[in-house]
Every structure is written in C-alpha cells, then in structure tokens.
C-alpha cells in the first residue's frame, strides 16, 4: 500500500506503508544509529515524535523480547528506507512490520531518508505527517501539522505507581520521567535496591523510603514543562546523592537557575563524542535529546560543566559544587549504543557510599 510523508515545509515524500495503517502527526527527528531500532522504538523519550533512521536497512535482525526499553513502542511513527521482511537473528521473535502492526504504530518505507535528514538538518526539526490515505492532500492537513504540540509528555509515559526491584545493595529512588529499562538494569547489575517512582512524586514520598541516592531518569519533551519535577529536585538536592541522565540532567540544571534551549535538530544516535573534562578523555556516547543546557547560564558558584560535546560544544554533563549531585546529557546506560560511559554508574555507587559513610560518621560524632 502506498503511503505519504509530508513535512510542514510542504515537502511530500511517497513511500510504502508498513506497520499500522492510518494517519499520524508528530515531530520528525532522525537517529543516526546503525543498530538498535528496537530500543529506539521503545524509548519513552521519543514520545510524540516520528523517528527516521538514517541507516537504510532496518529490521534486519527482527524484534526480540529482551531488547525493549519500555513495555510498548513509544514513537508516533517510523520512517525507514528499507524495511526487512526476512529478518535473521537467533533471538528474533518476529518482524518489525508485525510488531508495529500489533502495536498500532504507523510506518513508512521506501523513503529517501538521507534527503529527509538533510532537510531536518538544514531547516531544523519539523513537524509532519505519515498518511496511508490514498487521497491524501497536504493542504488538508497543514493546519493540524503546524498546530501540533507535544504536551506534557512526561505525564504520559511515567509510571503511575511505585515499582520495587529488589536488590541487596544501596537503596535507589529512581524517578521515572520516561525511564529506559536499561537504567534500572544498570542499577540492578550493581546490586541496587531500586524503587521506581512516578516523575511527579513529591520529595517527601521519596525521602520516606530513606534512599541512599536518587536517580533522575531520561524522558521526553521540553524540560521547562516539568515544574513539578524541578521543585522536587530542589527539595531533594543536598539531602541525598543525585545522578541525572538526559531530561533528569536538564531538570537538575533548571532547578539550580540554569537555562535550557531547544537544539536545531538535536542529538540522536550512538556516535556522539563527549569529553570528560576532568579526565581529559573523550568517550563515544549514546544520545537522544532535542534540548540542551545553555553553557553560559551555569552559575559558577554552584556548578560546572563536567562534559562537553566534541561536535558542537554543548553541555553534556554538570557537576554540582557543594552538593553530591552530577548529571549527564548522554546515556551511560547505552541500549542502544556504546557502553563506554557505564563507569558513571560506578561513580554514582561510590558517591552514595561516600555519602553514607560520611553520614554515619557524622551520626557517630553527633552521638
């Protein structure tokens, strides 16, 4: 079946339908990872977005039950050049096409994704539509497209109740703004006792479990839309060690008076070089964000940039000066992408242990 992809600038691409049929409007973003489409599909940070993969052959290794980053596909639509109907991999449980069909996600293939990417690069992220209606006309939809907004996406994707993943080690309260499962897995791998809280949970609720640390997750949308989270972070910081990733990183900065901005077309892929300024080492990181912290807005007294993006010098990490809190823009949990920065989880564990020891020491002294 034929399908159409139209952008708000008037460009129309013709392709073939796969996945579900129908019509979907969303913000169109490109991801440059050559593998990891399954993780991308199910990453809640893509809430409200239609994703195009720059790698042309997608679906080669099918879909398996282990590599989901959440319980369902989170993207609004999927754009590929060539969708593989005959996947081959020992873990494959089915085709990408069937998976999207079952989950009612609209896909389009046969698109010149390079041309699409160049447009997004040159004009910035655009809104658009995928339609399988044979009589599709862009002019009928252009107003809908232009008025499309991603509203409160965090509330859509966050867990509604506290979940507990038992572990023998440190107790971590994980705030779910659109959590990728591999953050939970990364903590569990380090023996943490993990409580996943809704993103809107209050500081009191969180502190009530007496956590050794708080982890701020990734998530979709504009960080400035999340006042509730910013307030909570203000209340938590200083009381427990905090480690933030992606949206969590941006929220922590906002909580401390820094500013964020929307990037022209964002960073989405598995090959972004990030320099750890303290170590003077550059790591290849997995990224997925459309907003970034404004470097000049960092209050030197309170915080400093710990990591910078080698391509565009954007802030990739912040270390806070007087409180045990550090955050990164990229995804140390990988999935998809390189695991080169997984050491940050170890640093978080270390921070929590140090804090705990210091506190115990303080308690002893007080006693």
């Amino acid at each position, binding site marked *: 079946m034929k399908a159409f992809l139209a952008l708000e600038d008037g460009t129309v691409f013709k392709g073939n339908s796969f996945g579900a049929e129908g019509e979907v409007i969303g913000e169109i973003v490109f991801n*440059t990872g050559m593998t990891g489409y399954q993780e991308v599909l199910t990453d809640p940070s893509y809430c409200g977005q239609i994703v195009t993969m720059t790698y042309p052959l997608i679906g080669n290794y099918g879909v398996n039950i282990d590599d989901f980053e959440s319980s369902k596909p989170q993207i609004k639509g999927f754009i590929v050049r060539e969708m593989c109907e005959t996947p081959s991999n020992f873990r494959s449980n089915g085709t990408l096409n069937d998976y999207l069909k079952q989950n009612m996600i609209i896909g389009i293939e046969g698109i010149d994704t390079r041309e699409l990417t160049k447009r997004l690069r040159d004009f910035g992220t655009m809104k658009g539509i995928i339609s399988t209606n044979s009589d599709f006309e862009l002019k009928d939809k252009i107003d809908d497209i232009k008025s499309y907004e991603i509203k409160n996406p965090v509330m859509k994707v966050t867990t509604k109740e506290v979940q507990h993943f038992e572990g023998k080690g440190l107790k971590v309260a994980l705030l779910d703004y659109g959590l990728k499962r591999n953050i939970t897995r990364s903590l569990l791998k380090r023996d943490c006792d993990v409580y996943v809280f809704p993103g809107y949970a209050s500081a009191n609720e969180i502190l009530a479990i007496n956590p050794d640390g708080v982890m701020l997750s990734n998530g979709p949308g504009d960080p400035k839309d999340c006042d509730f989270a910013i307030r909570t972070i203000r209340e938590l910081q200083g009381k427990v060690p905090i480690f933030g990733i992606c949206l969590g990183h941006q929220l922590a900065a906002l909580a401390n008076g820094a500013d964020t901005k929307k990037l022209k077309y964002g960073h989405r892929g598995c*090959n972004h070089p990030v320099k750890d300024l303290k170590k003077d080492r550059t790591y290849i990181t997995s990224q997925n964000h459309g907003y970034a912290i404004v470097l000049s807005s960092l209050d030197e007294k309170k915080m400093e940039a710990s990591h910078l993006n080698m391509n565009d010098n954007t802030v990739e990490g912040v270390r806070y000066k007087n409180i045990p809190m550090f955050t990164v823009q990229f995804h140390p949990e990988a999935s998809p992408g390189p695991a080169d920065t997984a050491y940050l989880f170890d640093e978080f564990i270390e921070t929590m242990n140090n804090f705990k020891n210091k506190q115990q020491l303080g308690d002893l002294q007080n006693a």
Partner: protein
Amino acid sequence: MPRRKDVKKVLVIGSGPIIIGQAAEFDYAGTQACQALKDDNIEVVLINSNPATIMTDTAIADKVYIEPLHIEILKKIIIDEKPDSILPTLGGQTGLNLAMEIAESGFLDEHNVRLLGTAVSAIKMAEDRQAFKDTMLSIDEPCIASKVVNNIEDAAAFAEEIDYPVIVRPAYTLGGTGGGIVNNKKELYEIGSNGLRLSRVNQVLIEKCISGWKEIEYEVMRDCKGNVITVCNMENIDPVGVHTGDSIVVAPSQTLSDKEYQMLRTASLKIISKLGIEGGCNVQFALNPISFEYAVIEVNPRVSRSSALASKATGYPIAKVATKIAIGYGLDEIMNAVTGKTFACFEPTLDYVVVKIPKWPFDKFVNAERTLGTQMKATGEVMAISCSFEAALMKAIRSLELNIFTLEQELLKKLSDEEIFRMLTDINDSRVFVVAEALRRNVSIAKICEITTIDEFFINKLNNLVMMEEELKTITIDNINSEVISKAKKLGFTDGTIAHFSGLEKKKVTEKRKSYGINISYKMVDTCAAEFEAVTPYYYSTFDDKSEVKMTDNEKVIVIGSGPIRIGQGIEFDYCSVHSVWALKEEGYETIIANNNPETVSTDFDTADRLYFEPLTEEDVLSIIEAEKPKGAIVQFGGQTAIKLTKCLNDNNIKIFGTEAKYVDAAEDRKKFDKILEDVNIPRPKGTTVYTKDEAIKVANDLEYPVLVRPSYVLGGQGMEIAYSDNDIIEFMEIINRVKQEHPILVDKYMMGKEIEVDAICDGDEILIPGIMEHIERAGVHSGDSISVYPTQTLSQSVKDTIVDYTRKLAKALHVVGLVNVQYVLCNEIIYVIEVNPRSSRTIPYISKVTGIPMVDIATKIMMGKKLSDFTFGTGLFKESEYVSVKVPVFSFEKLHDVDTTLGPEMKSTGEVLGIAKTFADALYKGITASGIKLPEYGGGILMTVRDHDKLELLPLAEDFEKLGFELYATGKTAKLLNSHGIATNAVKKIDEGSPNILDLIQSGKISLVVNTPTRGRKPETDGFKIRRKSVEIQIPCMTSLDTVRAIISCLKLGKKVKDLDIVNLDVFK
C-alpha cells in the same frame, strides 16, 4: 596533547612489492602517512623497494630510497639520514617485521632512534600467538581453543585432544601463508610441516575449527591518552574459515542486533586498550550465530587491508589519523577532514551499505585450485556502495570486470540440478553464483543456509535478485511499467541487464526508464549520515529523486581509474591515474576520478576534486559523465579498464583527451596496424588473425612452429601462449574460448631474441623517450615477468638509433598524443615491433623515477594542449642516467597451489621491485635481493634439469656454478652431459625412477637453487611441474629461464653481501 616536539625526522618503511596478501592498500596508507607527517613539518625519509608506488615519489617524501627492505640497507639509511624516529606500522607485515627485526637487534637504541606509535612490546603481545592468548585470558576475552607448537608431533597430539577439524596458522606470515584447515592426521602432517617451515619463528598455532560462525571485524583507533573509538565494523558473508581477504565483506554488519554489535565493540576497545595500541588496529571475531558466544580470532596491531577498506567505506582516513597519533596527537585534536568541523574522535555512521568482493586471479591461472580457505588468494578487491545490499552487490560484481553483470553465469546454467546442488558445498570464488543458481532451481533457502552456513539474511538478499531476474524475464514492450523498472534499478540492475533479461533492446529500456522519470542520482559519503555538512565528500549512485552533485562552472576533466589490482594491471596504473589528476589540477581543471578499488590512493577522498566510487562499465561511466558534464575524459592511464571504454565514449560524443579513439583501435586492429607498419616500413613478426581453431592450426603451420597465440584487447598477455604443435593450438583455443571473444585471436611467428621496451611521450609532432629498457629474459617471457634494465647494457648505438627512429615513426603514424609504449624484439640484428600500446604502461612509474622525467604529468598536460617544447626535457632520447636500474618481478606462487611457475608469454608476477646502483651488477644484485630471492650460498646445492635444446646453453652456466663452489645435481642425461664436459655433477633419479629421487633431494634441504626449463605441456602431472611446485612450497628459488640463471650467476660472481652495497636516494635523478 600537541604533537611531540622531539620528532623532527621520520623514517617510513613501505611494504615492498605487491604480493597476494599485501597490495596497494599499503601504498595508500604509506602515502597518507608521509603526507600527514609533512603537514606537520616533519622531514620524511622513505624506504620502499616498490617503484610502482605513489609513496616513492619524491613529492611525497623528502628523501626516497627505492632499496631492498633489508636490515643492512635500513641500517645504512639510518646512519646516513639520522632520523630520530621510525614509523613502522604503515608498511604492512613486511614493514612491521623489518622494524621489529632492527629494534630487536639493538641498533635503534644505539643510534637513538625510536619507534613511533605502538610499542614493540605491544606488537609482540598482539603478534605472538601464545602471548596474545595469555593477554586475552587475562582480560576475560575468549579465544578459540588452541595451542602453539614448534613441531609436528606436538601439533598432532593437540589436534587429537581438541578433535579434528583443526586450523593450522603459522606465526608471522602474511595472508596466512602456509596455513589451512585440516581434517585428519595425514593432512595435518602435510600442511603443519609446511607451516612450521614458513614461519619466521618456526611456530604454528593449532586451533579448534569453528567454521560456520559469523566472522566480524572491527577497525579500532587508540591514542596515547587512552581515547578509543571504532571506525566501523564489517561482516564477512562467508562464515569463519575463509580468509577475510578472500571473503565477500559487507559494512556495517547486517545481522547483528545492537546487543551483539556493542558486545563486540566493547570487547574491541578492551583489547586495544589492554594491548596499548597507539594508532589503528584490526580485531577479528568469530560469533556463534545462535548465541552470544564469541571468540577473538586475531588482532593486527597496524593498518591493514581491512583498515583501507574501512577508510574507504566510511570516509575516515585511518592511516592519516594513525600517523598523527604516532607523533603524539590525541584523537580529540585531529580534525575530521571530511566534515572539516568535527574531530577524529568520533565514530563514523553509514547511511548506505558497502560490499567488497575480492578479485581472484583464477581467470588467469585456469589450473589454480579455486578453493578458498585460510590462505588468501585474491590479488585485489572491488568495493561498491549503495543504499541496498542488493545494489551494492550487483555493482561490486560488475566492478570485477569478469564480463559478468548479474548473478547469472552461463557456465552454471548448463549444469544439472544435481551438479548445482553438489556445488553448494564448494567454497570457492563462484559461491554466490552457485547459490543464485540453486535458488533458481528452487532449492529452499533453508537448505542453502544449512549447506553453506551463510546467514539466511544474505541468502534472502540473493533470492530477491533472482526473483527480480525472473520478473524482468516477463517484461515486454507492452507491459513494461515504472514500478518494475524502479524496483530493478534500486536493486542494482543496469539498463543493459534489464535488457538482457527482458529481451528488450537496451536503448528501449533506457528510453522507457527516462520517460518514467527514473534517473540516476548520486549521494555522498560523509562519515556522519548527513548530520553535518561535508566538505570533501565522495559519491555513489542510487536511484532517488534527489541528487547531491553540485554543478560547478569550472572546466572539468574525468580520469577513469584502473579498477581492482590483478595480475597484469597493478598499482602502476593507479600511480598514473593519480599523477594525471595532479597534473590536471596544476593546469587549473576541476578533476573527477571514477574508480572502485578501495586499496588505492586514487580513491582517497582528497586526491581528485570529486570521487565517484562506481563500477567502470560503459553504462556506469556514461552516467557519471552525464551527471558531471566534464569537458572530456582521460582513458590512457587506467590500464585496459579505461582504454576499453574508448570506443563507447567516442560513440557517445564524449571528448577523449590524447590519442584519438580511431588510432587506439588501429594499434589493436591487426589489419589496420599492419597497414601502418607497411607504410612506415617497420618489420614485425609475421602473423594474422583467426576466429576458429581450424584457422589457427592452418596459420600456425604456414608460419611454422613455434607461434604465439593470443586474444586481442587483453592485458598482461592473458591467454597468450607459445605453441609448438597442433595439439598446443587445440588446447589454447579451447581455453581462450571459454570466455566469449568479441575480437579475433592473433597468431604470430614466435621470434626468439632480445626484448626491448620503450615508453615515449608524443605531442603529435615530437617525441620524448626518457629511456630504453632491455630485458634479461629473451622474448617469449612476458615483459612484466622479465628483469628489465635501464639504461640498456648490450645495445649498440645503431640499434638504439633505430629504436628511436621506429618509435617516432610509430607514434606519429598513430597520431599519439600522450603516452605510447612499444615493445621490440632484436633477432639476428633485425629489430621487429611486437606490440604498440598507445597508453600508459606498467613501466611508467619506474622509468619516470629513474630518469627524473614525470611522464604522466607531462603526458597529461600535452593531452590538454601543451607541447614538448613547453617542458625542459627536450625531444628524442633523453640522456642516459649514470645509475643503472634493474626492475625484478615478484611472484606470489606460494599462495596459489597448482599454478605452474614457468615463465612464458602470459604474465604471472604480482609485483615488482627496483635495484638502483652505479653498476649493472650491483643494481641487479639489489633487485634480486629486494625481490626476495634467496641467493644460494657457497657450498650449496644447485639442481639442474633442462629440456634438450637448452642443454648446450647450460654448460657454461654449470661450469660457473662449479667454479663458484656449488655442489651440482642433475637428472640422467643432463648429468651425463655435464660430467662428460668435466663438470662434476651428481646424478639424481627422476620421480618415476624410485627413491630417493629428485623430489626427495629438494625436500632434503641440500638444494638451494633449482634450474628447470620446462618441456612442453602445462599439465600438472609432469615431473617438471612437480619439481617447480615443490621448490615454491619449500621456498627454494626455481629459475625457469637460463637468462635469469645467468643474471643470478653474475650476482654470485660479484661476491658481495647486502651490507657491501651503497644506498642511493632518488635525488640523484633530479
């Protein structure tokens, strides 16, 4: 970290002659290295014995030594030049071994010379099998069950322990020389013993065979700060068991999920960090297709063939970055030249698929064993880029220049279903074609996967192509439609192949296609999948609506490259193509190059203004020209690949710079050429053209045997043979006609005499001959396989005058504008013309270097309108150099079983070296040494077995050997003859005379040189064939021409050692 300030002068070691397993990729790497050093104002001294390379240009390095890659020579260069550092990891295994040898000798410490980049200890850790295994174990990286052994008994014991089949891998050999999979004790003894002998340290690894696992490679970079990245990964379509150099390879991997991809990537980074590599490195893994189990196969702690491929596949210049790392830069300080914005510290991401197919020499060596295994056999490779795997594969197939344009092979179509099914088990060069044929015969995909163990993903892709063929067969002029054409084009079918399958006229297909608005488009390779704008990109074709070619108003010229490295068309044509591009740039033209060989300098993104990584078929090249609209094309420098496009380009009204198409044709067309020779009154050996076997026999008898038989329009004397009888003719014609011949076959009287070769530049009026070369071997041995000497040593002035006169007449008669190569034979004081090629030849780089005349640059400028008088070299014969240069061919026979090593009219060498010295004898000695021939040492055994008509000629040679103190051995009649002439010779039994016979003698180690002139017959069962192969296998030089033997004797008479030779740098020719 900025670069090390203490590095001021660096010695770069090249990789020597092109051999199987070590080809043009090291010229590419070495050239990049030299340029990267010069960029940083570091003085570069280069040593490489290979004159056909770009890196040995005086423009690339400050001091160039075309000298044997020998430790004694290296020491002399270090003493003379006083470099502070050596860059050892850019010259392949040869360069690395030499650097390790000199480092271990302590010489470098004594002279305060350091090795840049990866430390010696790290290289040892990666290269020594046991040390490597221990290291991997220490970081929990799994290896395959294996054991290093130093003798065959231990090998057998371990093989029993881990069960057959096992793989034998000799340590420190390149391209896996001497290794293989063995299934039982008998095979182990055979291959294992050989491997032990070939290893520099007498060591082989016996390894559990894990055939059927996926073979995945990662190209990794690390700097001295510890920053690590992977440039790309690659998946071999052929599972483990086939050497990666002989595998069809796809980049990036296609069947790995992110989890597997990252698992192996992480392992690669861990390994390179543990080894402490500083530069580029290749890590090979075997991955179990049904689990996450994997094993590290090996690590190459240097740039390699795979890194050249990865560089071209991604746009990331590994060799350049490795060089910058070696002089101290961090990956985060080196710019990405393609984007100009980002740094080398990132990982390229591809938005296309790359397929590499090896180029094997089996079309040339028809008797060679075609089975592929752990020992590499390919001489070169092609790379293709597209947005689908299918299209990339189809492009790569037509880039091979095998006259095959699809997955269909006529030969296979004739076979029965049973035969095709049986052939699925064969692992050889035609595997993909057999699989496609099996799919056509309805063998199930599952069955094919089971038999071949090739991943189902790829079999499905082949099936898509087969189904497309079937669909195309149903097309008629009435039902042709836009959808089917669009689909076919996106799968990589050319208009020609659509026409072939549908039976429609090609012109009609093109017309229809264009009427549907389906047009070729070109996309960029930019390292970043369009995330950033690219500044020095290159292009590949797709069939999309949008093309990224930016039209410019500048005057443009397209240079057609020479495709994959093969016997007869090697790196020298890349040298020529690159020089032509440079000359065009100097003249102010915008340059475009089209080529498909990932190993070369010509396909480096900053050689030409624009690079088209495309097949070089008529249709593909015409499409590029249509898109770029250049002023014209240059076809003289790309070997036969380019020259054979002459007619097509001319027919399409595309301007060809230089000699016009009709004269190119006249040089090849027998009748037209004979007419020209008659007009200018130059003799040639009698002969004529024929089409059939019967005609050939009749002509041969009229001319009287021996005669030369060859197809026209071929390179490297392909299919050329000397026939001594009707039977020979019958045999040769059968072989020639296996490939469909569009042109007639030539039969000429064979003239035995001295062969002389000339390369000249002609501007239409005047000619310039930089030098005349004479061959050591008499006519009948292909010029590419002959030892060639400049300046000539035995020609009289009158002969030289005649040659200059003839060359001028020929060049003018053929209206040559640019280069012309003429081969003559001097027989009974008469000079005959054998061949005229109005194009660049194999000898151009060499003669350019030793005369100081940049022939390609001048020729290119002349083609663009200049005259010889615009240059300072004059006309006629240039003054002879006071240095003698001897070019010696190098062969790769040890890699190709069942190939006869006899020299003849068909070229067999893969590369060449040059010896330069004040005297002929010294130059010859250098050339022989550089070529790797181990000269026999005093007291060694010389075994002689020659055909009857050579026996008298052998006498003085044998006498020389005796006087030089060698022990002589010969078979029956020869021994008798020598003894009767007072030359003491041991008689040896022939093979069928019982044991110990001649083969036992060779095996015994007593023999250090074999002289064997072949009797007729090319069949492998002859004694001569067995003797020659045996010599190759145990690496004893075997001379099949008495002329070469004479040359060897003159070296021996010299009584010098390598350390007695003076070194010469190319400045003497300035």
